[in-house]
Every structure is written in structure tokens, then in C-alpha cells.
């Protein structure tokens, strides 16, 4: 598993309203609430009706049965009573026949009606042909439970098909003289009940239809808001949070619509807050880029001084600023400042300060005068309560003489190599913008100090001194800062920076900085002997011009301009890397073997990088020229010959930057590991080990001219002597 240090583009959140945020709706079968409720209504309506009908039928059947039995028995009794006087007459059959016939005509449901005499002979019957014959009652008749209403001699019997009531015909004295029988078809009872059932079924059907219709109608009315709710939800899903869901309903659905409208309103609010947050984050990112772009691209080494800055930015955009600015006279200005307050306002003040400083630095030789002028300009723009602490110094890279002024900034720490201790330099200046009537000028004053070889000057912002400890609320403080500088000052500027970073990291437990942590370290390098070896300089500290050397250099440049190949470069490291590609397209140079080509291109890169950095201060607006001057010989025939001819050619570089000494080189003894941390001078080692001749002619009428030839150095040359 590996992790890439390069920041990857973060996967951005899906923006609200983005179609990607809406999950696709899958179509699936839908059960309509209307039909569910209607079916439920049908079941709920039919079930009681059917239950009631069933119970009612049972009761009706029982009641009807009893009624029919009673009516039949009464009919038998009535017939027996009517037959009592007639049966004692002369021709009872003539009188009973019409009586029975009339009875059967009036009661069609009767299967038969018959009157018999005491001998069982039929005396009354609707069919006259049967009169006088013996009556044969239906078979398999069984008594029916109707005992409560039967009188002596009466019976009520049934065989399943017929119900037969029998009543005795009595004389006045109670003697039985015959029998009256009436039969009724059982089917009559069933037909009567079936008719009742049909009526019930009709009523049930009507009730069910009414229930279905009523349920459907009421559910349609009740569920009408559901369509509006669904449409509203779909709108919200599409990202439309503006259109409210309009449901005028006093049921729970109305409350649901209100809740959904509230959700949409909160979503919209959250969406706006998120967009605002993203916009602010974008602006902070831009501010951070602006802030970073205002800082120096890298360290500066000029003459006997090396200047390095380091800033560890807080999560919030801070107002720390530092800069390294070469001046026209060869001196170098350094500054470090802290704007009160953070955020975009602090960043804007920092940008304004940087622009003012770059415009005013050439107008004021005195640091205190420059700070006074900055105060005057800034005071017009700063809000009340906003101020800037600032340290500004100008150093001569040749002599190590440094003049500085401080507008309320932290004390400057200077590690003195000779004494092995740290001095603190505090001044009485008040911050820029602290007052509005130019009172600052009375508090500012210039101080001049001499930096000797091995001395290290350290400036910083309160991100260091006011960093809170991991285990307590104690500040890192100036005293600890001084201790670290005292312990590591003797190891050089990079060691001081590394030690301070490490000490602060240990103090804070590696917590992200709450304020920008900015360091600016200036060190004077080399030994006293090396200082003395620097050639005599003119009044303006520029090396004096050797007349013969300058003429020879200009002749080489003219020859290169006549028949050489040129690469024009800007004075920044990005442009200098073009040297590597350029070489691959130049005849002869492209024929070099791999190690030689790498060594030559690296050496040329180092020369150009030194000119860009130390001569031109990495000012991309300035430029210089690299020429390849091939040997004036006949066309080579083989690759070996072409490669060999590279050593007979020459590289000529012309620049207008401040003079520096690429020719003053002493081979680094890499076996001495104490030098490794300093990491300086290696460029010259590469140049001088890859080139067998380096001639530097500064300040000719054509500018500084450096001439180099490629090839291994001799043993004598490697010892440090210049060619």
C-alpha cells in the first residue's frame, strides 16, 4: 500500500440540484389505496350482512315452519269442526266435497284435504271419485315436535315431503266420529324461505354496491392530496426547492405537506450554506495562493551570506509575510512582518504591504525611513485597530554589514559564532498603522551590526513564540527560541531552521498551527581567510574589471554570437531547466555519452541557476544568454570525433545580474560529514568537477561574461587552483 504525497484532486461533493444526486426511480407495481380501502369496505359490508342474513334465515325458517304447522293444524281442526255436523247426516260426502274443494282452491299450497268417517272411508275430498273409498295416508310419517299445541287425538306428522295435520271429528258429546287430515307439500316451506333469501341477497347486493361506491368516492376525496404530495416530492427530488407543495387539507395529509415544505425550506437553506461555504473555501484557497505567491521562491545565497525563509501556514489564511529582495547596488533587503488579524483582510493587507515595499525599497536607503514611508502609505488604508509589526534590514553580502529597523516586531536573535552565544536586539519602534499622524517616525531608528563568518541572524513571527504546548497552555516563548538558536547556531542556518521546526513540533505535539509560523534566517558563511581572498572591489562593491580579461571575454562572446547557438533564459528556476532540453538539440552536445551528457547538463544548469538566483535574485523579468561556441574545425565523421570536439568548444554566458564568484571554488571535502547539513557550495563542486575551465569576467561593457569548457579537471586544478 502506498500513499502519494502529491495532492490528488479531491472528489467533489455532488451539488444540490445536480441530476447525479437524484437516484433513479425504479418502476414497480403500485397497489392503489383506493382499491384496497374499497375492497376492505366490501368485505366489511358483506360480512355482517351475510352473517345477519344467515342467522335471520335460520330464525325465519324456524318461525315460518312453526307458523305453517300451526296454520295446518288449525286448518285440520277447522275442517274437523265443519265436518262434525255434516258427518252425521245422510249424505255427508255430498256436503263435505264442496267444503274440502273450496279449501283446496283457496289454499293452493295444500297437497290434499280429506275427511274420513270412523271406518276410515273418505267422506270429504276435492276429488269426488275418491269419495267412499278407504283413505291411505302417506307412508313413513313421523310425528313432528309440536306437542305444545296438540289437543287429544290430534297429530302433526311429516315424512320429509309432506307435512300432515290430523284432527279428530267429534260429536257434541266428544265421541270421535271421523278424522280430518290436511297435507302440505314441504316444498312450499322451502319456496317461501328461498323467496326470503332472494330478498336478502338483493338487499345485500344493493348494500355492497352502495359500500363500494361510497368507499371509492370517500377515498378519492380523502386521497386527492396524495397526488399533490407525490408531485411535490418529485420536484424536490429534481432539486426544485422553490415551489411549495400546496395542499389545503385538514387531515394528517395536510400536516405532512406542511412538514415536507419545511424540509424543502431547510434543504434549501442548507444548500445555500454549503454553496456559501464552498465559495468561502475557494476564496480562502485563492487568498492562500496569493499569499504564497508573494513569498520568495527559494533561498538566496549572495556573496558571503545565505538567506532562507520558511513559512508553515495555519489552516486559516494568516497575515505573515517575509521577503528577500536584491537591491540595485548589490545589497540585499530582507523583511518579515505580521499583520494583526487573520483571514482575507490580513491577506489583503499583506499583499498591499508587499506591493508597497517593492515600490518603495529603492527610494529609501535607510530601513527606518522605509518603514516610516510604509506607515504613511498603509495608514491611509488600514482599518482602525489593524496594525503591522515589521522588521526590515539591508545587508551587504560582501562585508556582512547589516542595518535594520523594527516597527514593533519581535526581537532579532543573532547567534555569534565567535562567542558561541545569542544576542537579542530589540528596538523601540511601534507597529505600522498603530497611530495615524506619523508618530511612528519618532520611534523608529536604524541599527547597524556586523555579521562575521559563522554568525546567524534569526527573525520570526509570533506563530513561534506564542505556540501553545501540547500538555499545557504554556507558550513556547522567546527563551526556548533563544536556547534552540544557541544550541544549533554553530551548525549553520539550515540546522537552525530544522532544529526550530523540530522543537516547535515537539512542543505542540505536531498539532496544526493556529497561526502562521514564519522564520527568516540569514547566515554569513565562509571563513575569515575566504573573506580576505575576495578580490578588491570598487566603491560600489562591484569587483574591479580586469582590462585584458574583459577584452578576451567580449571576444569570446562576439565569436559565439557570430557562429554559436544561443539559448535565452529568464532568471527563474523554471526557465533554467530548459538547458536540459536545449542540449539534446545541439549538434555535438547531443552526441555525448550518457554520463558525460548528464554531468555537462547538470553543470550548465548549476551555472545558470546561480546566475538566476544570486545574480538576478530569481527575478523572472530579467534574462541572460547561454551560448554554445563549437570548435572551428572540419565536419567530424564519427560519433567519437563529434563527442571529442565538445571538449574543444566553449560555453559562454552573458548576464546583467549582480556579480558573484562562480570561479572562486574550493573543492568540498565530502568525507567531512559536518559539512553535509549546510548543503552549500555543492553547485560549484559540480561545475568545477564537470568543467575543466571556468573563467568569470564580471562587469564588462557587455555585462558579466562566464566562459566554460567541458572536460575532466587535472589533479592540480581539483586542488582548488583556478584555471
Amino acid at each position, binding site marked *: 500500500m502506498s500513499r502519494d504525497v502529491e495532492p490528488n484532486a479531491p472528489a467533489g461533493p455532488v451539488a444540490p440540484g445536480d441530476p447525479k444526486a437524484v437516484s433513479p426511480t425504479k418502476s414497480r407495481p403500485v397497489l392503489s389505496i383506493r382499491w384496497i380501502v374499497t375492497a376492505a369496505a366490501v368485505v366489511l359490508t358483506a360480512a355482517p350482512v351475510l352473517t345477519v342474513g344467515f342467522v335471520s334465515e335460520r330464525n325465519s325458517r324456524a318461525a315460518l315452519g312453526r307458523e305453517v304447522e300451526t296454520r295446518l293444524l288449525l286448518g285440520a281442526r277447522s275442517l274437523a269442526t265443519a265436518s262434525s255436523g255434516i258427518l252425521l247426516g245422510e249424505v255427508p260426502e255430498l256436503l263435505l266435497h264442496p267444503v274440502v274443494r273450496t279449501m283446496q282452491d283457496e289454499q293452493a299450497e295444500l297437497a290434499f284435504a280429506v275427511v274420513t268417517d270412523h271406518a276410515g272411508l273418505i267422506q270429504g275430498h276435492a276429488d269426488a271419485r275418491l269419495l267412499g273409498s278407504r283413505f291411505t295416508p302417506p307412508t313413513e310419517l313421523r310425528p313432528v315436535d309440536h306437542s305444545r299445541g296438540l289437543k287429544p287425538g290430534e297429530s302433526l306428522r311429516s315424512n320429509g315431503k309432506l307435512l300432515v295435520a290430523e284432527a279428530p271429528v267429534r260429536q257434541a258429546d266428544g265421541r270421535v266420529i271421523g278424522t280430518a287430515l290436511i297435507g302440505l307439500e314441504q316444498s312450499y316451506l322451502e319456496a317461501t324461505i328461498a323467496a326470503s333469501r332472494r330478498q336478502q341477497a338483493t338487499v345485500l347486493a344493493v348494500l355492497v354496491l352502495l359500500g363500494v361506491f361510497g368507499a371509492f368516492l370517500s377515498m378519492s376525496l380523502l386521497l386527492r392530496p396524495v397526488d399533490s404530495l407525490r408531485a411535490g416530492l418529485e420536484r424536490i427530488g429534481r432539486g426544485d426547492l422553490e415551489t411549495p407543495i400546496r395542499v389545503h387539507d385538514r387531515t394528517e395529509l395536510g400536516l405532512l405537506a406542511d412538514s415536507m415544505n419545511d424540509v424543502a425550506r431547510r434543504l434549501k437553506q442548507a444548500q445555500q450554506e454549503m454553496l456559501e461555504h464552498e465559495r468561502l473555501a475557494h476564496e480562502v484557497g485563492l487568498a492562500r495562493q496569493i499569499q504564497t505567491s508573494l513569498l520568495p521562491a527559494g533561498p538566496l545565497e549572495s556573496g558571503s551570506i545565505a538567506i532562507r525563509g520558511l513559512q508553515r501556514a495555519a489552516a486559516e489564511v494568516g497575515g505573515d509575510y517575509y521577503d528577500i529582495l536584491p537591491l540595485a547596488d548589490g545589497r540585499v533587503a530582507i523583511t518579515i512582518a505580521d499583520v494583526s488579524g487573520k483571514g482575507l483582510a490580513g491577506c489583503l493587507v499583506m499583499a498591499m504591504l508587499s506591493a508597497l515595499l517593492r515600490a518603495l525599497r529603492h527610494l529609501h536607503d535607510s530601513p527606518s525611513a522605509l518603514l516610516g514611508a510604509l506607515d504613511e502609505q498603509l495608514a491611509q488604508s488600514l482599518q482602525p485597530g489593524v496594525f503591522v509589526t515589521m522588521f526590515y534590514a539591508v545587508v551587504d553580502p560582501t562585508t556582512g554589514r547589516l542595518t535594520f529597523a523594527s516597527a514593533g516586531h519581535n526581537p532579532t536573535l543573532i547567534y555569534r559564532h565567535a562567542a558561541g552565544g545569542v544576542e537579542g536586539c530589540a528596538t523601540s519602534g511601534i507597529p505600522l498603522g498603530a497611530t495615524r499622524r506619523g508618530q511612528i517616525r519618532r520611534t523608529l531608528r536604524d541599527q547597524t551590526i556586523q555579521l562575521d563568518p559563522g554568525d546567524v541572524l534569526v527573525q520570526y513571527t509570533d506563530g513561534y513564540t506564542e505556540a501553545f504546548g501540547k500538555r499545557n497552555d504554556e507558550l513556547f516563548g522567546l527563551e526556548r527560541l533563544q536556547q534552540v538558536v544557541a544550541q544549533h547556531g554553530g551548525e549553520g542556518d539550515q540546522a537552525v531552521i530544522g532544529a526550530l521546526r523540530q522543537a516547535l513540533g515537539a512542543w505542540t505535539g505536531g498539532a496544526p498551527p493556529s497561526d502562521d509560523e514564519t522564520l527568516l534566517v540569514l547566515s554569513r558563511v565562509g571563513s575569515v581567510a575566504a573573506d580576505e581572498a575576495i578580490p578588491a572591489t570598487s566603491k560600489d562593491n562591484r569587483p574591479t574589471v580586469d582590462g585584458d580579461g574583459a577584452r578576451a571575454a567580449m571576444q569570446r562572446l562576439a565569436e559565439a554570437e557570430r557562429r554559436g547557438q544561443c539559448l535565452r533564459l529568464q532568471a527563474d528556476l523554471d526557465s533554467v531547466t530548459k538547458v536540459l532540453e536545449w542540449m539534446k538539440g545541439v549538434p555535438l552536445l547531443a552526441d555525448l555519452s550518457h554520463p558525460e551528457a548528464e*554531468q555537462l547538463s547538470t553543470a550548465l544548469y548549476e551555472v545558470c541557476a546561480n546566475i538566476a538566483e544570486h545574480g538576478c535574485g530569481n527575478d523572472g523579468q530579467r534574462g541572460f544568454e547561454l551560448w554554445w561556441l563549437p570548435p572551428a574545425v572540419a565536419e567530424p565523421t564519427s560519433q567519437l570525433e563529434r563527442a571529442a570536439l565538445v571538449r574543444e568548444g566553449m560555453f559562454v554566458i552573458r548576464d546583467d545580474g549582480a556579480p558573484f564568484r562562480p570561479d572562486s571554488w574550493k573543492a568540498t571535502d565530502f568525507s567531512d560529514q559536518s559539512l553535509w547539513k549546510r*548543503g552549500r557550495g555543492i553547485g560549484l563542486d559540480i561545475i568545477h568537477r564537470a568543467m575543466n575551465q571556468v573563467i568569470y569576467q564580471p562587469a564588462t561593457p557587455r555585462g558579466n561574461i562566464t566562459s566554460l569548457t567541458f572536460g575532466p579537471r587535472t589533479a592540480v586544478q581539483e586542488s582548488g587552483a583556478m584555471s
Partner: protein
Amino acid sequence: MSDFRLEVVPASPRTDVVRVHGHLDARSATTLLSQCRMVAQEGKHLVLNLAGVAFISSSGIGALLALVEEHNQTPYQVRLTEVSPAADSVIRLLNLDQILAIDATEEASRQAVEAA
């Protein structure tokens, strides 16, 4: 401008490999130092794989030397491995191949730092 990139690969619980890609110059050297110091702070040995280095400047060499020197002050080791031809030619030019610990493979470096 080269696409400088670092890739940190844990080779073992005790060793991280930092693979360097692109131009190792003044700007990228700072990033390299920061990243490698983090490895040391995590209490691990460091193996620097330079196979992807297309160009190395004096600042890059300075960063390598500073790293070795810093690690010498700690219990943790640092070794170089799979040095690209571009980096190798400059290292040899400065005779640093006689001083720096350089191996042919990451595994060889890992074994060497963990055995030390």
C-alpha cells in the same frame, strides 16, 4: 517544469521507502526533506529509491547529504537504492558513491537498514 512526485511505500513495519520521481532541484528538495523527516519522526528507517529521478541539481544532492547527516544523529538508517543514470552520474562526479550507502534493490536496502 518537471512533475516532481514522491511516493511513500511502507516496506516493513520498521522501514519506509520513499520513491522520488522527476526533477530533484531546489524546490523539490524542500519537499523531499520534509517528507523524509516525517519518516524519521515516525521512528522508521528510510530507503530512498531514486529510480525515477530524471535530473538532480546541487540542491538535490545537498538534500540527500543533509538527510544522511540528520539520520546519523538518530537510531534510524537511510540508504539509497536503484539510483537512476541521471542521479548516478552526478553522484559519481562528486565521488559521493564512495560515501553514500547505495544498493541495487529496495529489498537489499531494507535488509541493510534493518540489520544495522
